[in-house]
């Protein structure tokens, strides 16, 4: 289809560009008039928030990299140089440091929303799988970023996590040596982690783009989990959801600012204020909070290889979730049993996080084993069977005309809006 694009924009400059490269038409189509289900709740803010968070991380990271030294002799002091001498260095660094935690908070809520409202089900399987890829990339990026300040937790975190790969028979030790670029975590390791930590966020941007592109093909899920059936079911993205996302953005920034300005080290570990010492492991070695559940799964299994496999498996199982859940109903609102069980699963994950923060002794070992078991049970046994056994509640007729039935989680009557065509 050669030739110029037929642009509808009145502004001559925009028109000139748009006829040659229709980016304005694209933006208008994808973010202006894009038909979006009208019944989103505030859970649907979190995708946009995660995107904003990624941008904040990239922006602050670029400026941190201007002053950071990826060398074992200089790294720790260069971070303190940023904190003390660089203009607003402390602000940029604290935003970046706490931004990692905010990113995981936002993303975990975003994932929970997907689980609760069945956003992973057909036709959005690939959208979901791209999301899992994003999660994995985020984790790799966060892990390598945490190594860069070269404190005690950085060093020992890097040692423990890279040693996970030694669990694999035959090739394991070779992989670990390859990751390290030596025979322990040292300068080559720090250098390559810095390189990859700078690279991966841009890969993330690429996968996020695919994630959003796939979303705009299938259209968004919604709290009722039923398909959009008519124009009455949707609203143009702008201004309805741009403004709603802005409200969420302000609240999110407030939480973010409270952390950065008033409790910047609340989520950190005191040990990371001690420069890395390869000869002395800290008494309590704990990963950052967002890794605690996986850490607990790892430790709950007495066998090294099995523990590593269980830990990675707990994430990889998410890839096949769309096929493990056999129920055709998306939203938990209309699945009375799933609606209870998803919270049991959430409770198990949170309990795993708590276990991960404790020394693996006594009750914590038992609890982490029970929760690990339930984690897998939920995905591998309960979801496939539940889909066959559970009797879902009757679904509403459409988003714009939800039929109120007894026991159903339909919208409040006020939300049954008048048709848009009234104008």
């Amino acid at each position, binding site marked *: 289809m050669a030739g110029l694009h037929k642009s509808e924009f009145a502004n001559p400059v925009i028109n000139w560009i748009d006829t040659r490269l229709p980016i304005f038409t694209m933006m208008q189509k994808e973010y202006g008039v894009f038909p979006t289900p*009208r019944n989103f709740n505030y859970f649907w803010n979190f995708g946009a928030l995660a995107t904003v968070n990624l941008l904040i991380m990239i922006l602050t990271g670029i400026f941190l990299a201007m002053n950071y030294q990826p060398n074992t002799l200089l790294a720790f002091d260069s971070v303190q140089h940023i904190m003390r001498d660089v203009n607003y260095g402390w602000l940029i660094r604290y935003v970046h440091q706490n931004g990692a935690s905010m990113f995981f908070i936002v993303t975990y809520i975003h994932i929970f929303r997907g689980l609760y409202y069945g956003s992973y089900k057909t036709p959005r399987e690939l959208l979901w799988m791209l999301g899992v890829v994003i999660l994995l990339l985020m984790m790799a990026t966060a892990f390598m970023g945490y190594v860069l300040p070269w404190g005690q937790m950085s060093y020992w975190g890097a040692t423990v996590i890279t040693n996970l790969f030694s669990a694999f028979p035959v090739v394991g030790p070779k992989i670990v040596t390859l990751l390290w670029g030596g025979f322990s975590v040292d300068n080559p390791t720090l250098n390559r982690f810095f390189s990859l930590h700078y690279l991966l966020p841009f890969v993330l941007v690429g996968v996020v783009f695919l994630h959003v592109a796939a979303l705009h093909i299938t259209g968004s899920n919604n709290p009722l989990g039923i398909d959009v059936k008519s124009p009455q079911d949707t609203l143009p993205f702008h201004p309805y959801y741009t403004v709603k996302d802005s409200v969420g953005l302000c609240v999110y920034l407030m939480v973010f600012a409270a952390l950065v300005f008033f409790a910047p080290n609340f989520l950190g570990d005191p040990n990371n204020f001690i420069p890395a010492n390869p000869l002395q492991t800290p008494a309590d070695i704990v990963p950052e909070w967002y890794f605690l559940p996986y850490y607990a799964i790892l430790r709950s299994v007495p066998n090294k290889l099995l523990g590593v496999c269980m830990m990675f498996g707990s994430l990889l199982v998410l890839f096949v979730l769309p096929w493990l859940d056999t129920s055709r109903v998306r939203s938990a609102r209309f699945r009375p049993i799933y609606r209870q069980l998803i919270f049991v699963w959430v409770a198990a994950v949170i309990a795993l996080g708590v276990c991960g923060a404790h020394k693996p002794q006594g009750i914590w070992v038992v609890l982490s084993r029970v929760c690990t078991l339930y984690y897998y049970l939920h995905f591998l046994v309960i979801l496939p069977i539940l889909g066959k056994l559970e009797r879902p509640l009757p679904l509403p007729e459409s988003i714009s005309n939800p039929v109120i039935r007894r026991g159903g989680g339909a919208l409040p009557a006020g939300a049954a809006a008048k048709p848009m065509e009234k*104008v």
Partner: protein
Amino acid sequence: MRPFRSLLAGIFAAGLLAAPAFAQEGEALPNEHWSFQSVFGTFDLAAAQRGFQIYSQVCSNCHSMHLLHYRDLSGIGLNPEQIKAVSAAVTVPQGVDDQGNPKEGPATPANQFRSPFPNEQAARSANNGAVPPDLSLIVNAREGGPNYVYGILTGYTDPPAGFKVQDGLYYNKMFPGHQIHMPPPLQNGSVDYTDGTSNALNQEAHDVVTFLSWAANPEMVERKQIGVRVILFLMFMTGLTYAVKRKVWSDVH
């Protein structure tokens, strides 16, 4: 928003459960009142300056503070003349002379705090095998922060009956394991204050911890000030965007 509420409740419950994990084992932390601990708290500059006096006269004989420069002392209220006087009184290494030999001279405000030992080995051999930790970040680097450091400084007591303290170590009730290499650094009257403040051990410890807390977080006052403005701005913006949202959505609901 039901799932939201349950989620919040769950996270709250988890926080309660997890809290003991981070609690200090053994001796309870002292609960000092610090000028800088509240949301709007700032550093008590007089206390910090007295603390710097203690650091200079006592701590700095063994402990380095290599992340600080004499110029940074403006943060505890010293003026440029005072800073020049402080630095000029200290002799620091100054690179090499024209023949390539190491040379020394009076420090300038741009110099790092003088380190008592040239390297780790020297520090170790001079201190019975234990390296005195650098104090630049010590308050951030210990669970319990200022209260813990205060607890160590005031925690030297006689060992309980039957507790065997090894030679060259000292009993400290706050230290994990209770045996510490550092001899009691402060006693009543270790320093003489010029401003008439009591030089009892508690006061000395309080002052030096105030100084060390500033040293670990010199940006804190500016951070809190900016933070208040940012939060107020964001509250305003939240209200504003919510009002716009209500208006925009008024023809839908």
